[in-house]
C-alpha cells in the first residue's frame, strides 16, 4: 500500500470533472494506493489569481501546503492547473525571501505556518513512476487490444521545468496506454495548449486551438483521446460541438480522463468511472471492453 495526501481541486471534487475524481479513487484502490483527501482545502486560485493578485495567490496555495505539511506525505493532484500552481508556490517561496516573509505573515494571520517541505505530485507522475507500468499491466483484466488512443498531455503537467517528463515530447502517458494494451498514436501536438481558461473570455481563439488538437489526433488515426487535466477534458469534449459549428467540421472524438481508460482496462464498471458524463459518447469505441 502506498499513501498520499489527495488534492482533488474544484473540478474533480464537485465540479464538472466529478468523473475524474471518481475514476481516480477507483483506479487507486485497485493499485493499492491510499489517497486521503486534504482536510478543508481551498481552491488553488489557478491562473486567474496568479495573474492579477500575486501575493494572495501564493497565500491560497500556501494554506493548502501548510495543511499537507502536517500530514507529511506527498500531495497528489489529478489537475494540471492545481499541480503547476502549488508547485510554483513551492519554488517561488524558496527563491524569493521577501515573498516568503510576506506569505509567512499572511499565513500567521490564520494561525498557520509552512516550511516548504511538501512535495507536490501529479497523478500521472505517481502512476508512471511510483507504481510503474509493469504493476499497472499486472492489474489489466480487459486488454485494450490495440485501441488507438491519442495521448494528450496539455501544457501544465510537463511544463515548466523541472518536470517528471520531457517538456515538449513527453512519453509517460504513451507508455501507460501501451501497458493497458492500447496503442498510443503519434500525436505531434500532444503537449500543446487547449486554450485553458481563455475559452471563457476569448472563445474564438481557444476554439481554434481545440480544432488543431482534434485534427491532429484524428489525422493520426485516434479512436479516442485521453487527458490528464479537467480543463483540457472540458474544452475538448464540451466545446467539440462549438468547434464543429464554427469550422464546419464533424469531429466526434470521445475525450476520456486517463483514469477512466485505466479503469476500463481494469474491468471496472461505469458506476466507478462515470463514462456517461462525457458529452461526446464513448460507448461506441469502448463497448467491446465494457
Amino acid at each position, binding site marked *: 500500500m502506498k499513501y498520499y495526501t489527495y488534492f482533488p481541486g474544484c473540478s474533480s471534487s464537485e*465540479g*464538472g470533472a466529478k468523473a475524474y475524481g471518481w475514476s481516480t479513487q477507483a483506479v487507486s484502490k485497485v493499485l493499492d494506493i491510499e489517497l486521503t483527501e486534504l482536510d478543508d482545502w481551498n481552491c488553488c486560485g489557478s491562473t486567474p489569481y496568479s495573474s492579477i493578485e500575486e501575493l494572495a495567490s501564493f497565500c491560497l496555495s500556501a494554506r493548502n501546503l501548510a495543511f499537507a505539511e502536517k500530514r507529511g506525505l506527498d500531495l497528489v493532484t489529478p489537475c494540471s492547473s492545481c499541480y503547476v500552481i502549488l508547485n510554483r508556490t513551492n519554488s517561488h517561496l524558496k*527563491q524569493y525571501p521577501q515573498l516568503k516573509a510576506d506569505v509567512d505573515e499572511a499565513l500567521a494571520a490564520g494561525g498557520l505556518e509552512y516550511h516548504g517541505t511538501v512535495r507536490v505530485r501529479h497523478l500521472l507522475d505517481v502512476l508512471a513512476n511510483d507504481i510503474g507500468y509493469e504493476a499497472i499491466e499486472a492489474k489489466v483484466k480487459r486488454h485494450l487490444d490495440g485501441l488507438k488512443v491519442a495521448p494528450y498531455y496539455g*501544457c501544465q503537467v510537463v511544463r515548466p521545468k523541472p518536470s517528471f517528463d520531457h517538456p515538449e515530447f513527453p512519453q509517460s502517458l504513451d507508455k501507460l496506454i501501451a501497458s493497458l494494451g492500447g496503442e498510443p498514436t503519434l500525436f505531434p501536438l500532444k503537449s500543446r495548449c487547449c486554450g485553458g481558461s481563455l475559452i471563457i473570455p476569448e472563445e474564438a*481563439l481557444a476554439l481554434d486551438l481545440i480544432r488543431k488538437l482534434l485534427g491532429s489526433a484524428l489525422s493520426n488515426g485516434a479512436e479516442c483521446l485521453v487527458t490528464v487535466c479537467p480543463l483540457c477534458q472540458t474544452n475538448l469534449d464540451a466545446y467539440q460541438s462549438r468547434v464543429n459549428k464554427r469550422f464546419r467540421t464533424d469531429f466526434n472524438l470521445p475525450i476520456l480522463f486517463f483514469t477512466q481508460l485505466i479503469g476500463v482496462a481494469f474491468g471496472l464498471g461505469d458506476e466507478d468511472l462515470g463514462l456517461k458524463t462525457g458529452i461526446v459518447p464513448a460507448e461506441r469505441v469502448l463497448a467491446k471492453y465494457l
Partner: protein
Amino acid sequence: MEIRRRADSFVGEICAIPGGEGVRLCIQCGTCTASCPHADKMEHTPSQLIAMARAGMRAEVLSSNAMWYCLSCYLCTVRCPRGIKQTDLMHALECLAVRQGLSHGRTLTPAMYRSFNDFVYSLGSLPEFGFMTWFHLLTNPLRAFRMIPVALSLFRHGRLSIRARRLTPEGTNQLRAILDKAESLGGVP
C-alpha cells in the same frame, strides 16, 4: 536623461515582482514569440513587449492586450535560452496593469479573472456554474444566452452543479483572514 529615468523605474517595478526580473536578461532572439500559440493575436508579441518595457513605454505595455492573451502554457519559458520565466513575466505585467487601473484593449480576460477571484475569495472554492453565469451577465448577457446549449449539455451529463462546495466555517474565516492580510501587505512586492 528623463527618458532614461522613466525606463529605469518601469523596469524596476517589473523586476520587483517575482519572475519579472527576467526582463533584464532578454537578448531579443524571438524564441518566445515563435513559440507562443497566440503571438499573432497579440497587439505586441512577447519579445516586442519586453523591448517596449525596457524602453520605458509603460502606458503602451500595460494597456496592451498581449499579456491577457497569454495561455500560461509555459512553452516560451522552457525554450528561452536566457532562462527568462516569460509566463511569470506576463503575469507580472497583468498585476501591474490591474494595480494601475490601465485599460486592457478589448479583451474580457481581466473581467473573467476578477469574477473568478471574487468567487474564490468569498467561498474558498470555485462553483463553475455560478462563476460562468456571473461573468457572462456582467460582461455580455447576450453571450450568456449563447452559452445555454453548452450549459445544457453539461447539465444533462450531470456535470453542472448548482451547489457550491463549501469550506467549514472556521476554514472560511481562516482563509479570509489570510487573504485580507495579504491584501493589507499590498500585494507583491
